[in-house]
C-alpha cells in the first residue's frame, strides 16, 4: 500500500463506516469483562426467560442468564476463530501460492494437485465435514476454516505471481544476480499484495459466518461458553416463548459480517479496481 492509496482508503466513507463498526466489535471483545453487566454463565433463577427490560436489556434465557452479556462475550469466539483461521490460511496459502507461482515446475504441479482435492468438495460442506470429523470444539472450527481457505489464498497468490514473474523488471533484477528468494520477497510480493489483502478481508467476514454456522450445528464453541451461533441454536427451541434469545445474537453476526464486507468492498474498489 502506498501513501496515495492509503489516503484514498481513509477518504472512502464505506471503509470508514465499516471500520468503525469493526472497531466497536473488536473493542467489545477485548473489554467484554468491563462492558458486560454480568458474567456470561451467571444463572438467576428468579429471572428465567424474562423479556428485554430494565433488569436485562436483551432479556434472559432458560437459566436466567443475561443475553446481552452472552452476546458481548460471544464476540470473542467469533473474532478469535476468524482471526486465527484466516491468519493461518493466509500464511500457509500465501507461502504455497508464492512458491508455486514463482518456482513453477514440479512443485507448482504438486501444490495444484493437492489444492484441487480440497476444491473438489463444496466449501461449506468441507468445513462442516472436517469439524464433524475432528469432533466439536473451537479448535475444530479453526482447523476447518483454515483448511477451506488455504487453497483459496494459494490460488489468489499464485496467479499474480505467475504474471509478475515474467515481467521485465523481475528478469532484470534476476540478471543482476539477486537470489530467487530475495527477488520473490522484495520485488514480486509487494506488487501482488493488493488482491491478497482484499481477499483476506472478504474471507474474514466469511469466516465469521462459517464459524457461526458451525457453532449453530454444535460443531464449534460448546455451551455453556457463549458463541453467537450456539446461542442461536439454544434459542431455537424458545422461539415462541422467548424470541429475544435468538434475535440479538443474529443481529450481532450480521453487523460484524457487514462491517468486514464493507471494508472489503471499499478496499477492493481502491486497491484493485480490476477485480470485480
Amino acid at each position: 500500500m502506498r501513501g496515495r492509496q492509503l489516503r484514498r482508503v481513509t477518504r472512502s466513507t464505506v471503509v470508514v463506516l465499516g471500520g468503525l463498526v469493526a472497531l466497536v466489535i473488536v473493542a467489545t471483545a477485548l473489554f467484554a469483562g468491563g462492558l458486560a453487566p454480568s458474567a456470561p454463565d451467571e444463572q438467576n433463577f428468579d429471572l428465567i426467560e424474562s423479556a428485554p427490560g430494565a433488569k436485562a436489556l436483551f432479556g434472559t434465557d432458560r437459566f436466567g442468564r443475561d443475553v446481552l452479556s452472552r452476546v458481548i462475550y460471544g464476540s470473542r469466539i467469533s473474532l478469535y476463530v476468524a482471526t486465527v483461521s484466516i491468519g493461518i490460511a493466509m500464511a500457509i496459502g500465501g507461502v504455497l501460492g508464492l512458491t508455486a507461482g514463482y518456482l513453477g515446475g514440479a512443485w507448482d504441479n504438486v501444490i495444484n494437485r493437492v489444492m484441487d482435492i480440497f476444491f473438489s468438495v463444496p466449501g461449506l460442506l468441507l468445513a462442516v465435514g472436517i469439524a464433524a470429523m475432528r469432533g466439536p470444539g473451537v479448535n475444530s472450527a479453526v482447523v476447518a476454516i483454515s483448511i477451506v481457505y488455504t487453497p483459496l489464498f494459494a490460488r489468489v497468490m499464485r496467479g499474480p505471481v505467475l504474471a509478475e514473474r515474467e515481467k521485465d523488471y523481475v528478469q532484470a533484477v534476476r540478471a543482476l544476480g539477486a537470489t530467487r528468494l530475495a527477488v520473490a520477497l522484495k520485488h514480486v510480493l509487494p506488487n501482488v499484495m493488493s488482491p491478497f489483502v482484499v481477499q483476506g478481508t472478504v474471507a474474514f467476514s466469511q469466516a465469521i459466518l462459517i464459524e457461526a454456522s458451525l457453532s449453530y450445528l454444535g460443531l464449534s464453541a460448546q455451551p455453556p461458553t457463549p458463541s453467537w451461533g450456539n446461542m442461536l441454536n439454544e434459542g431455537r427451541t424458545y422461539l415462541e416463548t422467548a424470541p429475544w434469545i435468538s434475535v440479538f445474537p443474529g443481529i450481532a453476526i450480521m453487523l460484524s459480517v457487514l462491517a468486514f464486507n464493507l471494508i472489503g468492498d471499499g478496499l477492493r474498489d481502491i486497491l484493485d479496481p480490476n477485480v470485480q
Partner: protein
Amino acid sequence: MTTRLTRRDLLKASGAALAALSVGRPAHAQAPKPGGTFVSAQTTEATGLDPQLVPAFSRSRRSPMMYNQLVRFDAEMTPVPELAESWQISPDGLTWTFKLREGVRFHDGQELTSADVKFTFDRLFEKSPGKSDFIAVDRVEPTGRYGVKFLTKEPFAGLLAALGGFWGFILSEAGIKKHGDLNTAALGTGPFMLQDWKVEQQMVLKRHPHYFKKGLPHVDEVILRIIPDEANIVAALRTGQIHHAFLEDNKNFNLLKDEKTLTGYRSSRLGYDFLNINASRGPLRDVRVRQAISWAVDRSQVLRVAASGFGRLTAPATAPMKQWQLPEEQWMRYYRPDLDRAKKLMADAGQAGGFTVKLGVIPTFPTMVLGAPVVAAQLKRIGITAEIENVEYAVWIKRWLAKDFDLTMNTTPGYADPDTAFFRALHSTKGQNWNSWSVPELDSLMEEGRRTLDQKKRKDIYDRVQILILENVPHLWLFSADTIDFTQASVKGFKQHPMTLLYGFEGVSLDRA
C-alpha cells in the same frame, strides 16, 4: 418354606393371566373404529432394529410394535402374561417353566413354537449385549411344542423383569435364516409388520392380520416420521399433520396443553437422570466429598430447568417401581440442600479449598445439556469447579466404558426390577461398576437380593440397598422427568407406559367423525 411362599406369590402374579388381554382393550365403551393411518413423530431415528444386536433405547422403544415378549409389564409395573400364558417355578427355585400361548403367528404366518423361543435365547446368549440381563440363566430348553424351561445357575429373582425388559423380544428362527440379522427387517409376532424404512425419514408399518390379540390392532397402518426438531413437532401437532408425538423437552407441555384439538398425557417414568460420579478419580474417592456434592446440589432446581418442573425427585427406585418404594421421608432427607454441611464435609476431607473436575455432557441429550450448567453452578458454591465438557455420543460411550471421566451427566430408561436396576451398575466385581468403586456391604446385599425369591425379604434387602446408595453416593439421582405424549383429540385408546416403550399403538384407533 421359602419355596411355598414363593409359589404363592408367583401364582398371584400369573393369576393376572385372565386379565391379560385387558391391556389392549380400549377404556371407553364405544367400539373403536377400525382402519386408517396413524402417524407418529419421533426426534431420533432408530440406529438399527435387531432386538438383540442394537442396545440403543431408540430400538427398544420400537421393538414392541413388531415383536412380543413372553411376559410384559403392565401400567402398574406388574409382570403379566404375553406370549407365555402362565409360568411355574420349581421348588428349588432353579427351573422356570413357561407355557406358550397356542396359535400365535409370526408375520409370515408361521406359528410360534418353543423352538423359536429356544432359538431366540440361544442367539441372545451367543451374541447379544443383552445377555447381561440373563446373567444367572444357564440354558433354555423346550418341553414339547408349547413349553419352555429356563434353567438358572442360582435362584434368580430378576428373570421376569429380564423377560419383560428391553432384551426379551421373541424372534422367529425363520426370520433370522431369511434375513441374517434383523437390523433392517423384522419378523416377529407383534401387532405391526415392517413395510418400508427410509432412514432418518420414516418407517411404515402395516397391520398384522393374524395378531394374537383378537381385534387388534385397530389401525391399518402406522407411520413413524422422523422430525428432528421438536419445535417442528409442536407445530405439526398443532396443525394436525401428525397424530402423536412423545415430547423430549418437557417445557413444550406448556405450549400444547391448552390446545383444544389435542389430548395430553403425562405420567411418571421408570427412567431417571443422574449425575454419574467416578469414585476412583482424585478427591472423588473420598466418600465425604461425594456426600458434600450430594448436599450441595439442589435437585429441585435441576428438575425445574432441565424438565421445566414436569417430573419428580426420586429415590434410587423410581415411582413406577411401586413395590420397591422407600418411604419418602427416608430418602427426601438426603435431598435437602445444606451448604454448611457440604462445606464441613469438604473441609473434613481436606478439600476446603475446592478442586476442579470435568463434567461430561452429550450434546444431543437435552436434559443433560440443560442440567449440567445448574449442577456446575451449585458445585461452585462449595468450591468445586466443574468444567462442562461436551462429548459426542460415540466418544462418550468409549470413554464411559473405559471409566475415563470424573463426573458425567447420565440418563437411563430404568429397570423394572431392583436387581437389574442396581446390580450391574453398582456391584464392584460382577457387574459393570459404573463408578469404579467398591462397597462390600452393598455387594453382598445385592447378591443376596438376586437369590431371594421371597418378596417381603427382597423388599427389606433393597430398602437397605437404597439407603446404602444414598449414603455412599455413587450417583446423584437428579430427577425423573414425566413422560409427556400428545395425540390429536380424534385418537382414542392411546396408553402411555412407564417404560416409554411403544406398547400403546396396538390399541389406538382413529375417530374419523
